[in-house]
């Protein structure tokens, strides 16, 4: 990786031309009308939700002309007649394959957007630790949830749409100094009972006090080829010297769309290690906005996406260095096959006070088919002069030397290629903090590889 000090580049104008946004179809208004009175906290949040729905209507869905999108026409995937997901009961056997974090993990399990109390296990955490559903927060202290919505960005239609419908999700509070030993898992499942076109709008709110530690696992699964839209909005606050590891695994069916935005604030000496694996979904967008507000922060964002068929996966990262002496690293890999399309937009901002910043970004892609497409756009915007920043992107095929090495040991070309493809992606799986999750990701990855079933013995 080459390190370079880059010259100051001008900040682009915050252009938002009207044609960059598409007006929502009428089904959203119908759904809101039908649903608003039934949402958790309907009385306390009714007005706010109505205002957010109006905002959503005004802002609409972005297409490629919108600055943060560019390579993805989100409206094409999202502006469809979705309906609020119907509730369903789920037996524990259906859930077991997706449990992560080990037997001591605490879990909140959501089925079609609603917490499933019989499957979840949240008891027995140290005093002061809060781990509960947003539904409960709305029942116990709606003002707290309202305060959360008050902090929403005002320029984003998807956030507004989420605010209009959100009445569930997870609320996590780790008080200062508490180093939580057991991991917490958030498991979001969608079943066919949710309906043919279900939508859910989960909220996730995570706060770590100074010196706190948390291992968080977030899993999104569509069962039995169920379809639907998940529009997740999350806020993460990592206090001074606190440490969060966040593993996200997405196992979504061909008809499932996922858009998730995380706003992450890090205080001095905080640590974040996030790892995301996207293994399926008609359209998946993972968006992260990290703000490094102090010195000696370590912010590591890892990810891997492996689209097949006509899947579309889009990663958008913005890392803002606001204070001196912090470190960020984006490490993303893609295996892109068939007619699928992957997008990686990673941007590093280094503001003027943020001297002695170390900021790196690497996006490596394996393109396995002539019809597959990757758009990778690493960007730097640097206003400080004493920084070390680098970015790089590669798009390619297998390394001929690696292929030769495996074949010279007797493996045929097809087996050698699938082993190398697997190994390419596995470098990111290895970064999952949770071992059961890593094993699940590996197993699911084999199904996405040409000839991958022959590799199952590897587990």
């Amino acid at each position, binding site marked *: 990786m080459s390190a370079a000090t880059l010259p100051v580049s001008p900040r682009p104008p915050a252009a938002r031309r009207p044609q960059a946004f598409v007006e929502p179809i009428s089904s959203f208004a119908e759904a809101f009308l039908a649903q608003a009175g039934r949402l958790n906290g309907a009385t306390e949040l009714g007005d706010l939700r109505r205002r957010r729905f109006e905002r959503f209507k005004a802002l609409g869905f972005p297409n490629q002309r919108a600055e943060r999108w560019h390579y993805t026409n989100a409206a094409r995937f999202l502006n469809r007649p979705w309906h609020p997901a119907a509730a369903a009961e789920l037996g524990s056997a259906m859930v077991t394959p997706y449990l992560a974090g080990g037997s001591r993990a605490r879990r909140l399990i959501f089925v079609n957007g609603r917490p499933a109390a019989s499957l979840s296990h949240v008891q027995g955490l140290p005093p002061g630790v809060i781990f509960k559903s947003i539904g409960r927060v709305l029942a116990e202290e709606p003002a707290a949830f309202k305060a959360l919505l008050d902090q929403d960005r005002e320029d984003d239609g998807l956030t507004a749409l989420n605010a209009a419908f959100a009445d569930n999700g997870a609320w996590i509070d780790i008080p200062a100094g508490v180093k939580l030993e057991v991991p917490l898992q958030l498991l979001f499942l969608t079943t066919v009972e949710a309906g043919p076109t279900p939508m859910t709008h989960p909220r996730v709110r995570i706060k770590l006090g100074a010196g706190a530690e948390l291992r968080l696992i977030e899993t999104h699964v569509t069962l039995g080829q169920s379809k639907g839209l998940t529009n997740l909005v999350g806020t993460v606050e990592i206090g001074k010297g606190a440490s969060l590891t966040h593993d996200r695994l997405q196992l979504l069916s061909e008809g499932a769309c996922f858009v998730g935005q995380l706003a992450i604030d890090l205080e001095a000496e905080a640590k974040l290690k996030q790892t995301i694996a996207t293994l399926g979904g008609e359209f998946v967008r993972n968006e992260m906005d990290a703000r490094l507000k102090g010195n000696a922060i370590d912010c590591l964002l890892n990810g891997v996406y492996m689209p097949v068929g006509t899947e579309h996966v889009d990663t958008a990262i913005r890392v803002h260095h606001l204070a001196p002496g912090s470190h960020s690293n984006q490490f993303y890999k893609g295996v892109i096959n068939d007619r699928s399309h992957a997008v990686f937009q990673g941007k590093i901002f280094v503001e003027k006070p943020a001297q002695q910043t170390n900021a790196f970004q690497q996006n490596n892609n394996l393109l396995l088919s002539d019809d597959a497409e990757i758009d990778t756009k690493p960007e730097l915007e640097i206003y400080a002069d004493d920084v070390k920043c680098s970015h790089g992107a590669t798009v390619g095929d297998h390394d001929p030397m*690696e292929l030769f*090495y*495996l074949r*010279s040991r*007797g493996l045929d070309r097809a087996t050698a290629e699938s*082993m190398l493809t697997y*190994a*390419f992606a596995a470098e990111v799986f*290895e970064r999952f903090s949770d071992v059961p999750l890593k094993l699940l990701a590996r197993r699911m990855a084999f199904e996405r590889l040409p000839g991958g079933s022959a590799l199952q*013995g590897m587990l």
Partner: protein
Amino acid sequence: MLKIENLKAGVEGKEILKGLNLQVKPGQVHAIMGPNGSGKSTLAYVLAGRDGYEVSGGSVTFDGHDVTEMSPEERAAAGIFLAMQYPVEIPGVANSYFLRQALNAIKKARGEPEVSAAAFMKLLREKAAVVGVREDLLKRDVNFGFSGGEKKRNEILQLAVLEPKLAILDETDSGLDIDALRTVAEGVNRLRSPERSFIVITHYQRLLDYIVPDVVHIQAHGQIQRSGGKELAGELEEKGYDAMIGAVAA
């Protein structure tokens, strides 16, 4: 067993081997020495069938068969093994798993029954002990994060497990400390047999003190310039290439 006649080969249109002759009989150990860039690794790659290494003249026969049109995996199944100068790292693939896949692929190609996971682990442990590979390296990913010396030992472990008829060692000694050199050489010596031949490419006589060759060749300018007994290596160490090859050329 191996007969190379007037071999001309190159890469990307550049001719590197310019009429090379070499004959290796079953059970023999041949050492090839030669200056940097003289085409030693090229010869090794041509024998193992690396893509892009084009044979433009001459012949290579192995056990009576022309191998130049065979794929690398076919050559592996035929019993050719190359321990590489720069072994490749494969993160995400466990060493033991990889070796079992390789062994079973070769067995399958030969129409032999595959080895079960349990039987293989037993075999692997035995071989690892023979060539001095620590057990924890078996569980680790292939060469990933291995030290230079560990990678070279791992090549010899693969050799021990795959049991080829012809093993080509390309600078297996470089990067090894003195103790590792001795263990690796002892491993190789234990693998010597009347049916198995070796081509040992090296820059140093020291390796040949441990793995005593039947024949030593000096390769330069894409040809074998001189061949002799093991004393040739000592002479070379003393006089250097200029004097030795110059004498031939003159």
